[in-house]
């Protein structure tokens, strides 16, 4: 394993963060809460008024406690950067989030594994969204071209009355490697949950997505959405589950998987369940090839076929 000095580690992480689409300056501003973790080392951590970040390094990762105080609206997005710069390594993040009642925060996370040939990134999250609180979490991954990363994010989320939890995860750069995504959300009265996963599988990538939303309170709403594009020998299985357990609960499972080529394999398993006669849950799942008319529309503008497919894939994963 390569040994980095703290400065080099930080510089390496920030470089990778920028390649993943992150804003380098956002990690320097005083008004911005941030957290940079390389393997099991916390390289930078800073909260702001009303938002506290506490960390504890463990042998294989870091425990993170993120608390947003009651009634506080955090003006600037919180920036998180997790990753492994070495070819091999293990990073286990245990995250506990408590967004207290009436709080509001946006979190932009970048997970970077630019050189991973045999690396594992695990995240176990326990997230609590208070009554009328809003928590928006956008995670973008930057994986290298070795395909040797295993990403295992798992989260259990409780959304209080009138609370909003929105989460998106995008892996469109480099190889996905192995992804085992498992998020489960429980919504109380008028709570809202939105889970979105977007990934571009190539080579031998192996993608498993499991999105579960329980609409337990009256008027709760949920969307489990996934957009996957698969090329080469990549394979994916998406399970989108939504349970309407209360009056006026509304849920939707929306899965689109596009297969480009003859060897990739896509599978979708939508499960919708209703246990209250005033709840309604719908689903749509489509698996197919990239639409020929879309490709030809772009080709008729002068793009080559591969360029046209690229534009379509980027659009789906946007």
């Amino acid at each position, binding site marked *: 394993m390569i040994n980095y000095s703290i400065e080099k580690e930080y510089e390496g992480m920030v470089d990778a963060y920028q390649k993943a689409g992150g804003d380098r300056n956002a990690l320097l501003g005083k008004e911005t809460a941030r957290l940079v973790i390389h393997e099991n080392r916390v390289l930078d951590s800073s909260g702001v008024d009303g938002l506290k970040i506490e960390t504890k390094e463990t042998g294989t990762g870091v425990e993170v406690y993120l608390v947003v105080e009651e009634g506080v609206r955090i003006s600037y997005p919180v920036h998180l950067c997790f990753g492994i710069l070495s070819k091999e390594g293990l990073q286990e993040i245990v995250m506990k989030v408590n967004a207290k009642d009436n709080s509001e925060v946006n979190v932009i996370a970048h997970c970077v594994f630019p050189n991973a040939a045999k690396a594992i990134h695990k995240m176990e999250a326990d997230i609590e969204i208070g009554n009328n609180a809003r928590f928006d979490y956008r995670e973008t991954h930057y994986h290298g071209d070795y395909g040797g990363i295993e990403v295992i994010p798992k989260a259990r989320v409780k959304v209080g009355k009138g609370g909003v939890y929105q989460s998106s995860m995008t892996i469109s750069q480099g190889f996905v490697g192995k992804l085992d995504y498992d998020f489960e959300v429980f919504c109380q009265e008028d709570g809202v949950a939105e889970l979105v996963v977007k990934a571009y599988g190539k080579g031998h990538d192996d993608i498993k997505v499991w999105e579960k939303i329980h609409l337990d309170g009256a008027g709760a709403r949920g969307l489990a959405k996934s957009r996957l594009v698969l090329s080469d020998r990549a394979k994916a299985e998406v399970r989108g589950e939504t349970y309407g357990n209360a009056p006026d609960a509304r849920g939707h499972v929306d899965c689109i998987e596009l297969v480009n080529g003859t060897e990739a394999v896509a599978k979708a398993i939508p499960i919708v369940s209703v246990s209250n006669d005033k709840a309604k849950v719908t689903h749509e799942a489509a698996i197919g090839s990239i639409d020929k*008319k879309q490709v030809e529309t772009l080709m008729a503008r002068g793009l080559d076929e591969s360029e046209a497919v690229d534009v379509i894939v980027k659009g789906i994963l946007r």
Partner: protein
Amino acid sequence: MLEVRNLYLSLNGKPIINDLNLHVSRGEIHGVLGKNGTGKTTLAYLVMGVNNYIPSAGRMIFEGEDITGLSVSQRAKKGISLAWQEPARIEGLSVRDYLMLSGNSHGVKEVEDYLSVVGLEPATYLDRYIDDTLSGGERKRIEMASIMAMEPKLAILDEPDSGIDIVSLPFILNCIAKMNERGSSVLLITHSEKVVETAHRVSVLCAGRILRTGEPGEMSLWFKENCQPCAHVNEPEKEGDTPQ
């Protein structure tokens, strides 16, 4: 500019294009008038090279070069483009990006101008996606704007007025005129008398064959008197029909 010679195409054993001959001159708006199912869209697809339509016989010559065997991209790079009757929806592709990629080196200012020509407010539309959130008419107008942005030598417009409301139709007609002013020849496929008035010459299509060519008023009248009462049409073609 475009010479279609003795073109034939059959779909599922039925002749759709049947010894079709057509000449479009440089700088001309050439209307093709025909009832539903006479092969108008098939002709558009054949010239653009889409939908796996490959003629069983005949040739298409563009600016002196045989383009019959060229791919869609190759034809587009030579200056041919197509505005589809029902344009594709593409998730996550913004109107701005669609017009920019159509226009290659155009800047945002030009892109805004093209939207204005088709009567769409740039501030409202540039950041929208060309997906299902647009109405049929909006998508259609964006398709026309994208053809303008491309400034093709030959624009094939397949039923540019379909799905367009009466209030918006003048924008489409103005767009065709502007396209032509800026140097594009136009192959204008329609069954609308109003739209065909913008053409310099019109050919009447029936059962996959051009019956006659002349000035728009004369051809409209001939079409009304002879084609409209006549039941002689091909089976309507569907996308994905297998060419034979």
